[in-house]
């Protein structure tokens, strides 16, 4: 009887069905990352190889895409080219082979920097405000708690273009169009709703007994919050911060409508990496690869908390 029960168990799949499931899932996974791998491979191709037919999987590795991503180049007369001293570095050498010289750095480092400044700035603010609000919602009897929580979440559902119209006018009035501060405040406002909901979930899980013990020991409420709740919520705060950072890093609609130069981030910039004579695909692929790598790393780190992140802390495992 016992043997029969395990052989026909309804909760544990048979070895054969496991093997088939594994094969199908692995096949889907390989199919789904093919576009990403292709972009990665393209970033190490020469422009000619990148548009070869049939598509080349294996090609001579080249860093031309990365060189082109970070430099601007200009075409010079052959006499001038001949008069130049020998190329000093890899990018110089590649450029000479194409009969161009490197004229200076491109806008890419500045755009990457903007993404970092705006990403970290808004993440810090959103997590700071979110932790305070989440603690209050978790521990105190706030009047209209459910309504306030719904209000906070509902702001995240606003269509970005609908918000961008008045924000554009508002920022124009106060001179915040195309500024880091303007974008940081805007992203903080979008992220704070996620931060409050996620962190409330994390703080709800910390037993109240710790704070009560601290209060008994003579700590004030604030001291108890800083000394017992914050350290215990550290993992939750870190996970929330990563979610906020990824959102700000990826955001496009506000960035393309409200920034044009000074505060432009990577997403609106990447499509405009255009080389001589049309789209420079290896350079675009290089920009995309550099942009995506941090997200891939964070996804792997965050995989245990992803579910919380995409359901505002409601579903936990």
């Amino acid at each position, binding site marked *: 009887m016992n043997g029969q029960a395990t052989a026909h168990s*309804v*909760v544990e*799949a048979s070895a054969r069905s*496991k093997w088939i499931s*594994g094969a199908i*899932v692995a096949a*889907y996974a390989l199919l*789904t990352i093919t*576009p990403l791998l292709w*972009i990665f491979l*393209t970033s190490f191709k020469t422009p000619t190889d990148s*548009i070869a*037919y*049939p598509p080349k999987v294996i090609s001579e590795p080249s860093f031309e895409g990365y060189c082109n991503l970070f430099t601007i180049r200009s075409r010079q007369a052959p006499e001038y080219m001949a008069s130049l001293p020998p190329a000093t570095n890899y990018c110089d050498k590649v450029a000479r082979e194409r009969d161009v010289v490197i004229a200076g750095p491109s806008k890419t480092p500045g755009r990457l920097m903007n993404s970092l400044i705006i990403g970290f700035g808004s993440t810090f603010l959103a997590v700071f*405000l979110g932790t*305070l*609000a989440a603690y*209050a919602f978790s521990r105190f009897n*706030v009047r209209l708690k459910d309504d*306030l929580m719904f209000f*906070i979440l509902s*702001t995240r*559902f*606003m*269509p*970005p*273009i*609908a918000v961008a*119209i*008045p*924000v*554009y*006018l*508002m920022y124009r009035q106060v001179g915040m169009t195309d500024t880091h501060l303007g974008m940081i405040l805007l992203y*903080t*406002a979008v992220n704070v709703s996620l931060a*409050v909901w996620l962190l409330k979930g994390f703080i709800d899980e910390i037993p109240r007994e710790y704070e009560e013990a601290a209060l*008994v020991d*003579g700590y004030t*409420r*604030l*001291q108890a919050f800083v000394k017992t709740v914050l350290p215990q919520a550290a993992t939750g705060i870190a996970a929330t911060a990563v979610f906020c950072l990824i959102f700000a890093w990826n*955001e*496009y609609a506000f960035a393309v409508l409200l920034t044009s130069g000074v505060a432009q981030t990577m997403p609106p910039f*990447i499509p405009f990496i255009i080389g001589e004579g049309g789209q420079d695909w290896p350079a*675009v692929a290089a920009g*995309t690869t550099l*942009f*995506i790598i941090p*997200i891939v790393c*964070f*996804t*792997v780190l965050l*995989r245990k908390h*992803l579910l919380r992140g*995409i*359901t505002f802390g*409601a*579903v936990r*495992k």
Partner: protein
Amino acid sequence: MATSIDMTNAVPIAPISQASTSRLGGMSDRAIAWLFITPTIMLLLAINIFPLLWTIYMSFTNFKANMGWVKYRSVGVDNYVDILTDTDIWTAMQTTAHFVFWSILFEVLLGFGLALLINRKFRGHSLWTTVILLPMMLSPAVVGNFWTFLFQPQIGLFNYIVGFFSGVDPGSFQMIGDVRLAPWTIVLVDTWMWTPYVMLICLAGLRSIPDSIYEAAEVDRASAWRRFWSITLPMVMPFLMLAVLFRAIENFKMFDMVNLLTNGGPGSLTETVSITLKRAAFEKWQTGWSSALAIILFLTVFGAANIYVKVLNKVKQR
């Protein structure tokens, strides 16, 4: 003896509970609660609610943001009447509905299917799950941009692979430029990107079903088919609803991916409502008119968000 133990236990409890309610040297709980919540609320009022009110105001005017010096005037509900009777808006709504319906249908079928398979806990399932999750973490704009490369006729990898397996010449069809294919192109990329989202939530639903229910069904000799329809599906349903509602809201207001993949083209064939709104607000500068459209979009989304939060509270795990 017993009485004295009770006494020693009873005496210290009273002062402790008193100490924990008195807040000497600290603020009252009420003050802390408001001090902690107010900054968030203020920020949201300034960046979301104030602009929203401004949008409502503008939606009743013929204001044009690129001609701020021209005196604008109130036009009553003309903008709203105009939008609701505009055939282009209804075309955009149909385009959006087509996109929302088909992308969500494919995401649910694929996502639920994958979740059922992954739930069999074969060896290496967590590694493959992480790989599958990657697309949904990416920037929709960047995704839209690099898929234009994969969809290049002749040289694009997508066209090549389709050509390789079907025998069709990869240079003979354009996913982005063709009037028949373009509406399906945005569905395809969205499905690629967001199937993992539906999968992850369905997986949580499957894992929330206690084994004992299946064991009880086994005792009753219920068939696998019957178990799926009577146990699995109803128990996963709230989770599935959660995923579907969220994707519906997000895809209804989809802008970034479509803007970079097709930019609403060819013509206005893949022009979702958000792209219509962008064109009206930031290219034609019909600020008053587009504010009215923004309010209509917002009300629709707000209604759906209300239902979403109700489902969210239903599946909330304590």
